[in-house]
């Protein structure tokens, strides 16, 4: 077996390791092992690459890796679970940026010899530059928004769509020019700069609540950029890995869009959350909100048979996950069955709320996804809604005039009683009225989520 064959086989092992890593993610029990297998696969690929014939500059490459590996590891260890969306956005951007730079460097390398570039390679270089650049800049804006360095609200101005459309058309034209003939490296550089600008402009108008969709989409982009780089360098391992990521990002984008009942176009161009809807809800005439004390809620919970906690992003903002789990423990000691109903967009990225609750030591069999949870509500005594609003809004089911009409929701109003923990009567993220609060079954416990939950736990303990 030749050395080249051995290296290719090593890359094949890497591909298998990555597929297994994703396969093992089908259950929380096997997932940690899968991730380790993936990491080993990556190590094999890196080792095989260093064994490539004709490699130079080992020293500088190894020094750069030795400097930046601990930085990545430190960031990964230090990051708070609430900040996971930012972290994932950052890594997305970093990967996309790397893909774009590889394409740029490779183009620069081959360009002194005119005619050396096949159409397939030049197309791939331009795709990698474009998608990688957009992914890098877009992810950075998403990061800055999620980190709240700038407002999470959509940033809009007149002519925005037109400008973005023109910019994208120009970039595609640049790419076509390079593919067609004049292999001018400055056009490639201009394309990269334009892609960076486009990445910024296209994420700016997207609001914080839509971040789960945007992050998934950028994830898919980075995968595609990596796959394009695979075509540039003729490496199957990059093509397969990139497309696995592309498939994952695409699936997640579709799922998140479905969970919000919004098309991708609507998310990207709708600037949702900017306009406060004036649509009055059908049910709010004459009805009033009923406020309740912590004591009464504690009694209600302690003597229930089944309690379902419905966490929203407000719970994570208040950092009340641990307190909620302690309350649940007390209830379970009294024989109350407690589960958690998790809406797909309960956090700032797909599956975010599950991680936050797992971190708070909630056993994962108690985490119920939407379909399962909705089947349980009719035999639930108390639904405890903490910091969630739009995902429990019955208008999504009943009011065709509502902006969220058609969005799948958690049917908490089918429970015997609904307790809503809320800071005040301010409308939710999308600024939409919620008739759930006026439902005769519903009582409201106002105050900071963390304070309220701590108070509830203290009262339950006394009972």
């Amino acid at each position, binding site marked *: 077996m030749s050395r080249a064959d051995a290296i290719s086989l090593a890359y094949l092992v890497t591909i298998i390791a*990555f*597929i297994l*890593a*994703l396969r093992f993610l089908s259950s*929380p*029990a096997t*997932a940690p092992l899968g*991730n380790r297998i993936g*990491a080993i696969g*990556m190590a094999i690929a*890196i080792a095989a690459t260093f064994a490539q014939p004709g490699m*130079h*500059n080992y020293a*500088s*490459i190894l020094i*750069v890796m030795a400097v*930046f*590996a601990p930085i*990545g590891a430190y960031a*990964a260890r230090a990051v708070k*679970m609430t900040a*996971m969306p930012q*972290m*994932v956005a950052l*890594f*997305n951007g*970093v990967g996309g*940026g*790397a893909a774009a*730079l*590889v394409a740029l*460097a490779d183009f620069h390398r081959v360009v002194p010899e005119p005619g050396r570039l*096949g159409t397939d390679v030049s197309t791939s270089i331009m795709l990698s530059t474009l998608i990688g650049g957009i992914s890098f800049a877009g992810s950075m804006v998403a990061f800055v928004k999620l980190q709240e360095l700038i407002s999470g609200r959509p940033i809009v101005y007149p002519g925005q769509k037109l400008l973005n459309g023109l910019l994208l058309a120009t970039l595609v034209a640049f790419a076509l020019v390079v593919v067609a003939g004049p292999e001018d490296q400055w056009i490639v550089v201009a394309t990269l700069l334009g892609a960076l600008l486009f990445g910024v402009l296209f994420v700016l108008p997207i609001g914080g609540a839509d971040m789960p969709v945007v992050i998934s989409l950028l*994830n898919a982009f*980075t995968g595609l950029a*990596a796959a394009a*780089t695979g*075509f540039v360098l*003729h490496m199957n391992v990059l093509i397969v*890995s*990139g497309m*696995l*990521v*592309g*498939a*994952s990002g695409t*699936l*997640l984008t579709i799922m998140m869009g479905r969970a919000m009942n919004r098309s991708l176009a609507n998310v990207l161009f709708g600037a949702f959350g900017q306009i406060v809807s004036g649509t009055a809800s059908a049910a709010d005439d004459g009805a009033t909100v009923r406020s309740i004390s912590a004591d009464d809620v504690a009694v209600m919970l302690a003597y229930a048979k089944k309690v379902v906690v419905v966490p929203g992003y407000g719970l994570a903002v208040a950092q009340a996950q641990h307190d909620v789990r302690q309350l649940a*423990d007390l209830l379970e000691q009294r024989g109350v069955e407690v589960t958690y109903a998790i809406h797909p967009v309960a956090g700032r*990225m*797909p*599956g975010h709320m*599950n*991680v936050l609750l*797992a971190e708070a030591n*909630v056993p*994962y*069999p108690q985490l119920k*996804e939407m379909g399962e949870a909705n089947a349980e509500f009719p035999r639930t005594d108390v639904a405890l809604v903490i910091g969630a609003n739009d995902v429990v809004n019955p208008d999504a089911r009943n009011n065709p005039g509502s902006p969220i009409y058609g969005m799948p929701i958690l049917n908490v109003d089918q429970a015997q009683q609904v307790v809503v923990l809320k800071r005040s009567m301010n409308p939710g993220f999308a600024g939409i009225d919620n008739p759930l609060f006026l439902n005769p079954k519903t009582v409201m416990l106002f105050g900071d989520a963390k304070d309220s939950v*701590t108070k509830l736990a203290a009262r339950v303990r006394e009972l």
Partner: protein
Amino acid sequence: METTQFITELTVLVLAVFIGFEVISKVPTMLHTPLMSGTNAIHGIVLVGAIIVAGLPDQSTWIRIVALAAVALGTMNVVGGFVVTDRMLHMFKRRREPEPDEQS
């Protein structure tokens, strides 16, 4: 020759897409955040491409800087991605663990 290689690569790409959809559709929603950070780590495979470009002989300083920058980004991507996914996956437990700090 070139076309043939391109078609082979395209075939690989298409098959990878199908495998990707097949495997990922089996991941429960509960694990979607680790799925994202895990695939994040996997697209760090561009590091391999970066190493190859950075390892080419007779480069201009300009390429070398760009390629080494790509190595730096790729390294952070790979290491950070796998570490954070590992950290997250170890939080998912079937049963509640006894906590030493059950104060308050």
